């Protein structure tokens, strides 16, 4: 096993393991902490794909900003733990889980069969692509309009959040 494989396996196990922990923990605070672990392992996976800029943004924006927001809201609401996870194992839930698992198995089955003519990764090219320079160049030339529209999305979100969280609409 090469170093690359070992690093990938560790990150993949962390990714799947923390995702399972997120959806099974009763305390929302613990779930948030496992989600942060999940985001860090995902940032590591981005690094194995030579996407440095996306990896940094993942940690700054997701693990840094969005998760602090989640923790803040959970602390603010002072939620109790959910009664019991197995409180109601209803037929509908089991059907949901079963169907999801079936979809996953189908996807993995298809992936297992699409064999040899896969694109081969050019590491030098990928390294060049993932740099801030290359992302910035694409963002401010080909994707300038979508980039500007993003600012409208953000301002609408800020105004919306303030209006929704206000005590009374007067």
């Amino acid at each position, binding site marked *: 096993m090469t170093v690359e494989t070992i690093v990938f396996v560790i990150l993949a196990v962390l990714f799947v393991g923390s995702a399972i922990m997120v959806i099974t923990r009763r305390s929302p605070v613990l779930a948030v902490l496992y989600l942060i672990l999940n985001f860090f392992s995902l940032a590591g996976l981005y690094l194995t794909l030579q996407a440095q800029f996306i990896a940094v943004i993942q940690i700054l924006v997701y693990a840094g900003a969005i998760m602090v927001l989640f923790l803040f809201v959970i602390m603010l609401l002072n939620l109790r733990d959910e009664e019991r996870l197995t409180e109601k194992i209803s037929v509908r839930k089991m059907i949901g889980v079963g169907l999801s698992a079936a979809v996953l198995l189908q996807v*993995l089955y298809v992936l297992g069969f699409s064999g040899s003519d896969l694109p081969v990764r050019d590491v030098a090219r990928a390294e060049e*692509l993932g740099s801030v320079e290359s992302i910035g160049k694409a963002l401010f030339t080909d994707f300038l309009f979508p980039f500007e529209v993003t600012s409208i999305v953000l301002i609408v979100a800020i105004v919306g959040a303030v209006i929704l969280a206000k005590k009374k609409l007067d």
Partner: protein
Amino acid sequence: MIDLHTYLGLSATGFILGVIGVVTRRNAIIVFMSIELMLNSVNLTLVAFSSFLGDATGQILVFFVMTVAAAEAAVGLAIIIALFRNKQTVNIDEINILKW
């Protein structure tokens, strides 16, 4: 060298775990976190394709997905706070005023 399949399979696993979280959990905040899990798994697919095909567009798309996810988290958490203020609960089984 890890091939594209492995990344796609890992990403599909993460996505399905998010789906299972959404269908089984009753705490609105944890449902929300499961949605973030799904968004991130899709991001992994995009970055993997971008890196393997040598095209930066996938990574730009991830950038936009993150922006929209940030906006969605802000508005969604504000909605959860407003709900909690009105009903004293975030259990989505008890929030059913739009159900007929």
